[in-house]
């Protein structure tokens, strides 16, 4: 029935790039490099060589030494490892950490569990645009602060934090700084050799790599305990058989994900979209207008009920907040933290563009959004104020 289906949910996950699929396929099947990379036989060494290449490709994307990259099952696990691992291994340094209410659930939920274990967690404030001021972070740091965890690009709003300035605050006070960079790779550059960042969470599937594989960068010398035990893989930081095809694809995806080349294209699509959406009277942009990644737009449609808006736009794959929230009635914790009411948070859509988004995709989406918004607006004519503000 539906003639078209436009995918504007690249922040939830991206399709795997065909070049990445090719590399992955070379590691599967009886004639592929499918051995266990921990095996010492020739087939194992060939698989290991794939892992080494990938580790280098991933390291290069964030200007890190390859030997400081460790593979995990995704950014969720990397975030958990960063928080639990650092707080566990540095107990003697203190029991205080800092994060923000804008973080991904992986960080927020880990922080909650740490709180239940006696760790004191401070949520640093941010402004209504979702930006954290380095001065506020500096003021939150205490003598017993061990770790600060702030994401690079917010997955719901696309807002970009000034990681360099935030990192400086941590470095000055000798506090470890973890950055969840799941959303930024390939869109915004991140260099751990230039920025004072100690731990970085990475994931493949937001950058045209496969789902189910991620990594953590751990700066040389940072003390951290594993959260999964058994086997000597990944320097003991993360045991379990290394998934050759996943890691090889991850590496290839990161090698392809050059922000210098991709960001301008993403930005032009996103700007095209916003130029159209801003003409819709009831639409307003969430998050800072310019300090943002080129791939995400989060827009509130005042007076339009969220679930109906999404159902009406069922030919467009967008999301309400993050993908992991999208099945749940709860409106986005990020938008609420930025001051939106429950109703307005629910009336917001996250549009995220990517490598395969065309100009005509955006034209189509704009037409459809205008059409459905005006229909639902008319339907709700006379509704009380709380639906719009």
């Amino acid at each position: 029935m539906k003639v078209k289906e436009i995918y504007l949910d690249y922040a939830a996950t991206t399709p795997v790039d065909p070049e990445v699929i090719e590399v992955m396929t070379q590691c599967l099947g009886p004639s592929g490099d499918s051995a266990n990379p921990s095996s010492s036989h020739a087939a194992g060494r060939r698989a290991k060589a794939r892992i080494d290449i990938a580790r280098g490709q991933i390291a290069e994307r964030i200007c890190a030494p390859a030997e400081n990259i460790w593979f995990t099952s995704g950014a969720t696990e990397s975030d958990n490892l960063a928080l639990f691992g650092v707080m566990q291994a540095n107990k003697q340094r203190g029991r205080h950490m800092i994060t923000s209410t804008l973080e991904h659930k992986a960080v927020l939920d880990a922080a909650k569990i740490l709180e239940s274990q006696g760790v004191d967690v401070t949520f640093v404030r941010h402004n209504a645009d979702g930006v954290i001021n380095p001065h506020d972070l500096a003021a939150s740091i205490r003598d017993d602060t061990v770790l600060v965890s702030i994401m690079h690009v917010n997955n719901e709003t696309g807002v970009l934090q000034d990681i360099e300035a935030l990192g400086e605050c941590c470095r000055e006070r000798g506090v470890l700084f973890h950055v969840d960079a799941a959303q930024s790779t390939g869109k915004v550059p991140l260099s751990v050799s230039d920025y004072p960042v100690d731990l970085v969470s990475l994931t493949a599937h937001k950058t045209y790599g496969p789902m189910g594989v991620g990594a953590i960068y751990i700066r040389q010398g940072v003390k951290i305990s594993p959260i999964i035990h058994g086997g000597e893989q990944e320097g003991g930081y993360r045991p379990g058989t290394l998934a050759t095809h996943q890691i090889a694809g991850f590496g290839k995806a990161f090698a392809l994900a050059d922000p210098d080349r991709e960001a301008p294209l993403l930005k032009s699509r996103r700007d095209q979209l916003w130029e159209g959406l801003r003409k819709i009277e009831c639409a307003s942009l969430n998050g800072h207008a310019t300090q943002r990644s080129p791939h995400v737009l989060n827009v509130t449609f005042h007076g339009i009920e969220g679930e109906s808006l999404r159902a009406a736009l069922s030919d467009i794959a967008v999301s309400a907040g993050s993908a992991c929230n999208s099945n749940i009635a709860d409106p986005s914790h990020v938008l609420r933290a930025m001051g939106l009411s429950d109703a307005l948070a629910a009336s917001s859509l996250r549009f995220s563009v990517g490598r395969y988004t065309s100009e005509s995709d955006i034209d189509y989406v704009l037409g459809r959004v205008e059409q459905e918004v005006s229909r639902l607006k008319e339907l709700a004519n006379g509704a009380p104020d709380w639906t719009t503000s």
Partner: protein
Amino acid sequence: MDNPSQIERRFLSPNRKKDFKNNALGVVSGEASDRTLNVWVRLQIQVIDSVIQTVHFNVYGCPHTVAVVDWAAEWLEGQSAKALVALDMLKRRNELGVPVDRLGKLLLIEDAAAVCKMQLDQLNMQGKS
């Protein structure tokens, strides 16, 4: 009958009547809303000779609410005014295959209709007095 698809059809193209002209004869209006449920419903009903002639509605709510309002409007037309208090959402929810957690939202349609009925009764009292 495939009820979930009736929901979808009604949500996507509800059969809405034009607004009534100001001071149209025998028109009453009833609203109900619940901020925590994120729903607002308004029914406008024209009753002539105790028969519901036309129902106009506005709604801010989830697709199920929109679809069921549309169904209710259609169902009411042509019935006697007493039907306004006979909208049984508990029963309709089942028939139309609406998930149970939506029932609270649907009950606001009953509320709006009940307000219409009260208004109508007042109008009739005034007519009689």
